[in-house]
């Protein structure tokens, strides 16, 4: 349902999400985020170009790591959201709390400025 691929270069990690995150698969996203926190990642770029759907269970995973990331000095930017997924972030107001970029290049700029 969701395939998550992680690539790390030093303190930078790219997480690529492909598929759908719902109440049955959000645990996979949770595990990946927990691993990022434990692995000492300082810049986390989440590629959502292949993310077709995310329910509140998946959004809740992103939200639940904002505070631990802040305390550990981890910067996170998610990018490449399709219109449907971006709309969900806007309806809930998550675009005010989570850094969102349009594409990888933009994400790189945003994370360097964060």
């Amino acid at each position: 349902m969701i395939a998550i691929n992680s690539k790390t270069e030093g303190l930078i990690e790219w997480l690529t999400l492909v598929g759908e995150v719902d109440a049955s698969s959000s645990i996979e996203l949770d595990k990946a985020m927990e691993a990022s926190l434990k692995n000492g990642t300082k810049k986390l770029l989440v590629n959502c170009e292949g993310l077709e759907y995310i329910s509140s269970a998946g959004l809740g995973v992103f939200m639940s790591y904002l505070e631990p990331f802040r305390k550990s000095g981890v910067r996170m930017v998610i990018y490449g959201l399709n219109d449907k997924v971006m709309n969900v972030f806007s309806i809930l107001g998550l675009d005010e709390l989570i850094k969102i970029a349009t594409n990888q290049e933009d994400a790189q700029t945003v994370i360097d400025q964060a």
Partner: protein
Amino acid sequence: MPKPSLIKHSYKVSCAKDKLREIRIFVENSLKDHVPSEVDRANIIMAIDEVCANLIIHSNNCDPDKNFEVIIEVEKDKEIIFQIVDQGVGFNLERYREPDLKYLMAEQRKGGMGLMFVVRVMDDVKFTTRSKKNICRLVKRLNGQ
């Protein structure tokens, strides 16, 4: 006697989280001829997914031996009425207060946004319990589609 313009779809499914995808496909297929905007359709599908996930997890404790039903009635060019019917623990919407996102963030809470989304997307949301049967009734008006 049903109204001539009323189209009805229903789907009965067990209370297991891995059924959520099937339900989303059922809702998508039921809506595609009536909600042309892909974004609007996606919002409605997610709202139904949120109600079904809550019902499976909180009302029925993910018991696959229990079933629930999703009924969709489309009154063409007017409104879509969704009824999600189960026999688990009922929910009282009157006690619901929309959580503050900053509170959820500070408390590292993963839950709390599903119903918030449902209430923001749907035009009417009601939960009723009668004769041990819970009905979540959601209305989405089609004006301006």
